[in-house]
């Protein structure tokens, strides 16, 4: 049986808590930059099923995957306390990576959808994904130099989002800004948790 090891590690009675936060958004929107601004970046490779790129398969259910290839993921770690660690997972926006999302989303605290106002439509699939699965999320607008600034309300209308859903402007390069994004997400999750279940989604 497994006793004794916690004592050996000097961690008797303490539970190590690891918390997942997802960071979604289109290609080149600044996910890697944001993860690097606020957390310790770590290399992480995962496997991607090798399917025929470009050729859409209508139904792959029950078909044995031929093989896989490895891909690098954005992955960052923020140690809040010795026994409380946040993990940031940058989830690639392309559909072919979505097999990873279901697993990442399970038990996750919530998600940040990083958006570029010049290509807002890129984040539609991510928003749709989180809404369908009732995963709390916020929108972070990465304010690229030279990009037109939009009012949060304009973006809300463009993305057809609920009024209660936070939209924050950020500079993905800045630690303070990235921190604010994370704080906004956790505050949002806490406020959603306060609502009675019946009011969700309407």
């Amino acid at each position, binding site marked *: *049986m*497994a006793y*004794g*090891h*916690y004592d*050996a*590690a000097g*961690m008797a009675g303490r539970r*190590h*808590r*690891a*918390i*997942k936060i997802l960071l979604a958004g289109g290609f080149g929107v600044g996910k890697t930059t944001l993860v690097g601004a*606020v957390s310790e970046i*770590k*290399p*992480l*490779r*995962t*496997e991607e099923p*090798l399917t025929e790129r470009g050729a859409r398969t209508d139904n792959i259910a029950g078909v*044995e995957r*031929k*093989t*896989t*290839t*490895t891909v690098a993921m954005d*992955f960052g*770690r*923020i140690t*809040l*306390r010795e026994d*409380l*660690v*946040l*993990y940031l*997972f940058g989830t690639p926006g392309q559909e072919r990576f979505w097999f990873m999302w279901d*697993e*990442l989303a*399970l*038990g996750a*605290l919530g998600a940040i959808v990083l958006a570029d106002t010049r290509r807002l439509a890129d984040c539609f699939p991510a928003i749709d994904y989180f809404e369908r699965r009732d995963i709390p999320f916020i929108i972070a607008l990465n304010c690229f130099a030279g990009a037109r600034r939009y009012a949060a309300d304009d973006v809300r209308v463009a993305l057809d989002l609920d009024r209660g859903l936070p939209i924050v402007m950020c500079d993905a390069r800045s*630690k303070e800004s990235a*921190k604010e994004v*994370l*704080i906004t997400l*956790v*505050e949002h*999750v*806490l406020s959603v*948790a306060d609502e009675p279940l019946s009011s969700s989604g309407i």
Partner: protein
Amino acid sequence: MPSNDERWLDAEAGPVVRPYALTQGRTRHAGEAFDLVATVTTTGGRVADPGALAPEHISVLQLARVPTTVVDIASDVDLPLGVVRILLADLRELGLVAIQAPVPAQTRQIDRNTLREVLHGLRAL
């Protein structure tokens, strides 16, 4: 049904062959599934046949002497997640590691106190 050999003879599979050679070609692990941020800890158990362990198993065991998450192990041993999961499942079957779910399986939600602690921790960064 294709043999294991056929599966790995694909020209595109080049970089995959080596990591999965560690797992004897297995791409799925035995036993209960575990989360990416599940915590792995060595049990202090001993293995009857040390020859059954690959050097990578040993590396994983060394990292798990203190509670360590599945993703941290994958990152630190620099092997793809899928490979590390198979290695971990092997070690679990041998009784060498315990793998603890990150949140109680029945709730699947993070409790409010933990959320507040996270908030506090982030503000202090």
